[in-house]
């Protein structure tokens, strides 16, 4: 019972790290970036390729799994995304889907279509017994890392100058510009950071979610669910949504396996019909 | 005199805030009535209550003696209560012709008609022409609404409400934002509205109020502060204190 809860939390945390960048781009720049999963995939492949072809240890690849997608995100934001902020959502969807297609085919071309597997270091394998609850070591690792990220994000947003500028830019870009805040720089930095987080999520998730060229398409729906259910105005919304989703998914499949797959979707529809702005948004 | 529109003890609370405080108000048949009040007095809330965009916490609304308190907005329009908006609410991708045609054909029950081509009914054409002429829109009928000059858009806003053939017309600051040059045309059009339509004008502009209205109600903090003829209200020192004093800096 507690094990299920634990697994659900780990899964939810992972979803959050993968999706929170999307929440930010959507909330901040009002940009529907369906290519978000492609950055996650980039992170996953960075880790897999470094480990399998160059023998770099798992932990050492993680910073790179953050940095490389972040740079990629920064470059794309400056060259392409930037031009599309003012366009309609349909344009953005079309554009980012196009990017996904290109990413899928390009990764397939470079690394093949098969699953990429990574070898966790021994100290992350297996499970231990914590007060009668069987706890997977790797999942604990994920929870610790992701938990730290959540706290760090929350602190950055609420306590730093960057955070207050970011919030100002979200609330009203025009006013923020009037206050002398370089909104375009903040957008770029945030986009890069979100892409980096996705990359880190992809690297951490490669072990549990699998990693192949179709990754961005396979998990796009999950990311979107997290973001719509959680709302986009805060970090806590998507975070709680991820947890609920993770736990509901795992518990649903455990207790009612025949309808397990319904749980997540039905939950989403109910939430969105009752609270169209998302579960944790104040009603307007 | 018969009463066109009446509210009894109308209250609207938003959480702890009382936006409309026990307003009992009468609009007489054929009246030219102005509702004034300082910013935040609750004028817009009041109009939203009348048109059904929001529901009152308590109280009742009557249109020509019939209660409409629980009625959906579109049904109130069909019963003859039309409004204009303070900020233009138009259909940017449609032409004035289509916009007016839409309002007319909806009123005549044509909106459920999905087979006939729009404009094939003679009576509709006739009415469109009449309204277009009344509101001086004949020269821009086939332009995209979003490309119209602001003054024309303002006229169209009123024209659409008028096309609903209202018994009561609520004008929410019709002249707001209209440049001085186009202002005269707009005011003349408003003044020329037929007398069988009762008009409630919500306005800041005192010149317009005094030239147009024959009765004035003053709303302060959501409650009716006073009501009377133009003469009475304009000389009321209390009104000057709460309202006119403020309007100086506008």
């Amino acid at each position, binding site marked *: 019972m507690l094990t299920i809860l634990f697994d659900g939390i780990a899964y939810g945390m992972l979803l959050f790290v993968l999706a929170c960048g999307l929440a930010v781009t959507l909330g901040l720049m009002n940009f529907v970036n369906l290519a978000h999963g492609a950055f996650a995939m980039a992170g996953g492949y960075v880790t897999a390729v470094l480990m399998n072809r160059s023998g770099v240890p798992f932990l050492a690849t993680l910073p790179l799994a953050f940095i490389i997608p972040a740079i990629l995100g920064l470059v794309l934001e400056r060259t392409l995304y930037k031009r599309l902020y003012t366009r309609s959502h349909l344009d953005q969807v079309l554009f980012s889907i196009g990017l996904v297609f290109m990413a*899928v*085919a390009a990764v397939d071309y470079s690394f093949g279509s098969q699953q990429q597997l990574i070898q966790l270091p021994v100290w992350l394998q297996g499970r231990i017994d914590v007060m009668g609850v069987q706890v997977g070591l790797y999942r604990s690792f994920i929870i610790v890392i992701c938990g730290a990220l959540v706290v760090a994000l929350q602190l950055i947003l609420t306590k730093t100058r960057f955070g207050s500028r970011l919030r100002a830019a979200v609330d009203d870009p025009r006013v923020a510009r009037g206050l002398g805040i370089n909104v375009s720089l903040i957008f770029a930095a945030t986009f890069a950071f979100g892409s980096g987080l996705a990359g880190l999520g992809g690297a951490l998730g490669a072990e549990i979610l699998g990693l192949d060229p179709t990754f961005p398409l396979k998990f796009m729906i999950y990311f979107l669910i997290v973001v719509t259910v959680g709302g986009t105005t805060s970090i806590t919304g998507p975070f709680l949504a991820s947890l609920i989703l993770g736990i509901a998914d795992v518990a649903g499949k455990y207790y009612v396996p025949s309808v397990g797959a319904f749980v997540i979707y039905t939950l989403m529809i109910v939430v969105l019909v009752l609270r169209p702005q998302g579960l944790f948004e104040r009603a307007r | 005199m018969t009463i066109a529109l009446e509210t009894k003890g109308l209250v609207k609370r938003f959480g702890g805030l009382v936006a409309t405080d026990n307003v009992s108000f009468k609009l007489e048949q054929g009246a030219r009535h102005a509702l004034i009040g300082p910013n935040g007095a609750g004028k817009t809330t009041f109009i939203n209550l009348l048109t059904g965009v929001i529901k009152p916490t308590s109280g009742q609304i009557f249109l020509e003696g019939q209660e409409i308190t629980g009625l959906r907005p579109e049904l109130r329009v069909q019963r003859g209560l039309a409004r204009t908006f303070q900020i233009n609410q138009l259909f*940017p991708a*449609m032409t004035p012709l289509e916009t007016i045609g839409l309002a007319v054909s*909806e009123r005549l029950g044509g909106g459920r008609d999905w087979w006939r081509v729009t404009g094939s009914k003679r009576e509709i054409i006739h009415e469109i022409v009449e309204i277009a002429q009344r509101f*001086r829109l004949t020269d821009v*009928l086939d332009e995209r609404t979003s490309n119209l000059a602001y003054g024309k858009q303002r006229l169209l806003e009123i024209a*659409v409400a008028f096309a609903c053939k209202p018994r009561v017309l609520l004008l929410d600051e019709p002249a707001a934002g209209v440049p001085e040059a186009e202002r005269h045309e707009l005011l003349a059009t408003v003044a020329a509205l037929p007398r069988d339509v009762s008009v409630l004008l919500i306005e800041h502009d005192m010149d317009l109020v005094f030239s147009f209205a024959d009765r004035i109600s003053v709303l302060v903090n959501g409650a009716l502060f006073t009501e009377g003829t133009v003469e009475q209200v304009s000389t009321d020192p209390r009104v000057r204190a709460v309202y006119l004093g403020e309007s100086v800096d506008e």
Partner: protein
Amino acid sequence: MSTNIADYVRTTLVRRGRWGISEIAFWLIAAATLYFLPERHLILNEIAIIGLFALSLDLILGYAGIVSLGHAAFFGLGAYAAGILARDGIADPLLGLGAAAIAAAILGFVTSFLVLRGSDLTKLMVTLGVALVLGEIANQASWLTGGADGLQGIAMGPILGLFEFDIFGTTAYAYSLTVTFLLFIIARRIVVSPYGLSLRSIRDNPLKARAVGIPVNRRLVAIYTLAAAYAGVAGALLAQTTQFVSLDVLAFHRSADVMLVLVIGGVGYLYGGLIGAIVFKVLQDVISAWTPQYWQFWIGLILVIIVLAGREHLTERVRTFWKGMAGRSAKIPETLPKPSAREV
């Protein structure tokens, strides 16, 4: 003098209903392909079906402003309805179409109440959720649908008892094209009717539409139901002409593809879906024949370029070309009187 304006008003309004030369040419060419491109009938059949499917999405997206990422729900339901009917011995294609339309319309009616509220993103996700749930149901109900193996044993009778489906896909294409054309005529009629006008007004500004006395929700429910029926028919056409239904008629990529098709072709003038279907399918066919592994890359690149080059600008051009041909001969009469100062 006011008859002058009246004439002008009438011709301007009726103009939209008239068929332009380019429209007639479009359908003539489509009909001509029945004779001139015999070895392409199979893909043309698929194009006609996707075109109809995209047309149905255009009805709600282009004319009522409802975005949907779950339109495959109706497509798939129609496909299964027609397929199951045919498997169980009711082999008449037209009957199958009718049943599919009704089934999809019922689902459309019921689910329409879910998409009346909320932002675009909310609507996207709710419609997506409906399609995913339906996909799961179809997967679980394998006794009815054949589950993941697909629905087998569909044997279609001849259309109207006269035309057997052939292996060249000619009958299938003629059938799909005819159905698409007939439904197109109805859709075209609807969008220029007062009802269609009220839909456009709702898309533009629902608040104002209410203020004009339009029962907004009822109109949206009606068009959503109709579009669902159209999508159901498209699905039924696919089921009948391929005589096979598998779970991917309900899959997410189906909804996403139809959205791409429509957006490529342009939203809000009915031909967008048809043109988009031609462009998308032909591109996919040509590129994937050339590189079966990596065609997605080039499709993706084309999408990106289309957007960067200014899609809305491009489709606006196509659309005005289309409209320009649609009898925009009625110019404002020279003698149009300037409005007099006061006329009460």
